[in-house]
């Protein structure tokens, strides 16, 4: 299982979204890495990619709103990291469509997404929780 309890920030809405994100990424990776032929995998891959494009943006917006609500000083830098990932997902998605659903592109995307997500939630997002804890900010701000 990709999700680990140590990734929890202590903000229930964000934690629930992270769990869902990890669940979807895990399911994406299982399809991506399965023994089935690429053509059989394409519908599930496409479905997950579309979900990621929508959900990542929605989750990032919610997380940024929470950061603003607690005056998180790293907000601007964190937003730039989010924007970089959104741009990457859009770019890969466009290349994937233009390449007629090339498998290599998705394998590369899957590998980068896995490492990026773990680092982002385990390191970058934890700084938000550390700041909130230091300020004694409770779940409701």
């Amino acid at each position, binding site marked *: 299982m*990709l999700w680990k309890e140590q990734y929890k920030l202590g903000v229930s809405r964000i934690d629930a979204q992270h769990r869902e994100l990890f669940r979807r990424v895990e399911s994406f990776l299982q399809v991506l890495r399965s023994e089935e032929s690429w053509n059989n995998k394409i519908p599930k891959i496409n479905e997950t990619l579309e979900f990621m494009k929508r959900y990542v943006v929605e989750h990032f917006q919610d997380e940024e709103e929470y950061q603003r609500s607690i005056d998180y000083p790293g907000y601007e830098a964190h937003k730039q990291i989010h924007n970089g990932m959104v741009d990457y997902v859009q770019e890969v998605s466009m290349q994937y469509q233009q390449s007629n659903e090339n498998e*290599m592109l998705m*394998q*590369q995307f899957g*590998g980068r997404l896995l*490492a*990026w997500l773990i*680092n982002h939630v385990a*390191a970058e997002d934890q700084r938000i929780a550390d700041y909130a804890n230091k300020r004694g900010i409770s779940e409701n701000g």
Partner: protein
Amino acid sequence: MVDNLYRAFVNATRDVFNLMLNISEIKDHPADGFKIENGVDISIGIVGDLNGEVVYRFPASTSINMVKIMSGMQFDEIDAFVASAVSEIANIISGNVLTALSGENLNYNLLPPVQSNSDDKEYENGKSCCIDTSIGEMCLEIKLNSE
């Protein structure tokens, strides 16, 4: 400056292995040449006030172990997925180095990681090491022109 960069890269590697792979014990030592036949080579250019290159070398077994830990899935060989995940880890380590050295009053940046061998250019200063971990070793080479 090479020594500063070297220490920053080793420290950043320690932090990233700890946080992402739950590996807390790492030990660096001078590299006895870079003779890793199968593995993932990642080159990251340094541009600005500093000019040079950092090359990461992850042997096949280390690369596969890293991706197994992150994904909980089975991998038997280096493919596009594994190489991309390992390349992102090199990118994360490098980003952490930039952050750690942001107070040095030097204006420089790191280029996106490229999966390739070293650029074979001649540099004036260099330092290399290998880092031992419980899932295998990885090596680093830092090459800079004079400041």
